[in-house]
């Protein structure tokens, strides 16, 4: 149930829809490019636009969809595809956990609707927006579903065989990287955050060279954040650190 308190701070739906949809644009730009590319590849692998759209609707996780299509064309069955999807997408658990701070006092309904749209991109953008204030669960929910609709529409359009955007046009392939770069800068709000980001980045690169798949994201993030907590809680190490 919503407490009165969080209801007061929450934007009315019309404002939330406007802010959430507009706020989603960097992700939509990126999803447009990747979604079209995915649709084209899936169509070449023998999937119809309907089958592609259904995958985007039911799964909604870009990299695991690319992997699933390549596994399908290699003739893989239910168990290996589902297990691979699970491991590839497990990182979202960490992201949902981190968003909990901003999602208190909400009922299971809104949380369940929101959970569906937690991706690398929506997590990164919503975290920054929650942190900067003037953001609430409704805006975040609209942002998630705007990006989801963009993803479904782009993958289906690509599935009709349309490479509507010529490869490399407008540098659109770099939209999400540029967004991540800027959102990372937003997260560096003090010495401990910089230390954690540097350790996480170096660990991730090292692990990504050693182990296949993307488990390096979770391992590096969990370890680096743990070291950050040790640093923060050790009076000797963090004497110069301002309280946050």
């Amino acid at each position, binding site marked *: 149930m919503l407490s009165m308190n969080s209801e007061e701070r929450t934007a009315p739906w019309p404002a939330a829809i406007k802010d959430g949809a507009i706020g989603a644009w960097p992700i939509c730009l990126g999803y447009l490019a990747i979604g079209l590319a995915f649709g084209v590849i899936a169509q070449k692998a023998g999937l119809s636009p309907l089958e592609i759209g259904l995958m985007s609707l039911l799964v909604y996780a870009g990299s695991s969809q690319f992997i699933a299509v390549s596994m399908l064309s290699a003739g893989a069955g239910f168990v290996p595809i589902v297990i691979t999807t699970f491991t590839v997408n497990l990182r979202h658990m*960490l992201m*949902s956990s981190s968003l909990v701070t901003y999602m208190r006092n909400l009922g299971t309904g809104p949380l369940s609707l929101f959970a569906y749209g937690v991706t690398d991109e929506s997590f990164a953008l919503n975290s920054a927006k929650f942190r900067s204030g003037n953001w609430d669960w409704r805006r975040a929910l609209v942002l998630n579903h705007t990006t989801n609709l963009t993803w479904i529409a782009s993958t289906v359009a690509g599935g009709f065989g349309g490479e509507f955007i010529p490869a490399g046009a407008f540098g659109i392939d*770099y939209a999400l990287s540029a967004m*991540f770069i*800027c959102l990372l800068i937003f997260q560096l709000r003090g010495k401990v955050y910089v230390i954690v980001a540097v350790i996480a980045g170096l660990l991730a690169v090292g692990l990504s*060279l050693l182990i296949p798949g993307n488990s390096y994201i979770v391992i590096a993030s969990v370890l680096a954040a743990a070291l950050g907590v040790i640093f923060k809680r050790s009076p000797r190490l963090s004497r110069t650190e301002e309280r946050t």
Partner: protein
Amino acid sequence: MIHADYLYILIGMGIVTYVPRWLPLVFLSRLRLPEWFEQWLDLIPAAILSSLILPILITTGEPRQLDLLRPELIVAVPTFLFAIKTRSLAGTVVVGMFLFWLAGKFL
């Protein structure tokens, strides 16, 4: 037509993707979390963003290898500086795209 086999695979994929996204939101949001855990969660976004972006910028191929001359990395340097200087998300995305487009023309 959608084959039943394909549909089962999609449903399986959907469940194993949705549940990890859903569980922490529904269960952790009801708990009183210890202070160290809140601190840990607070550091997670910085850690995840860094571990997402850095390997994309400086590794390539399958199996991955270090490659410090990728246009992705070269473009990232001015994009980083622009983000630090302006703290503008819209500006950074547009500048990053423009520089990457330029890099595609000249590198």
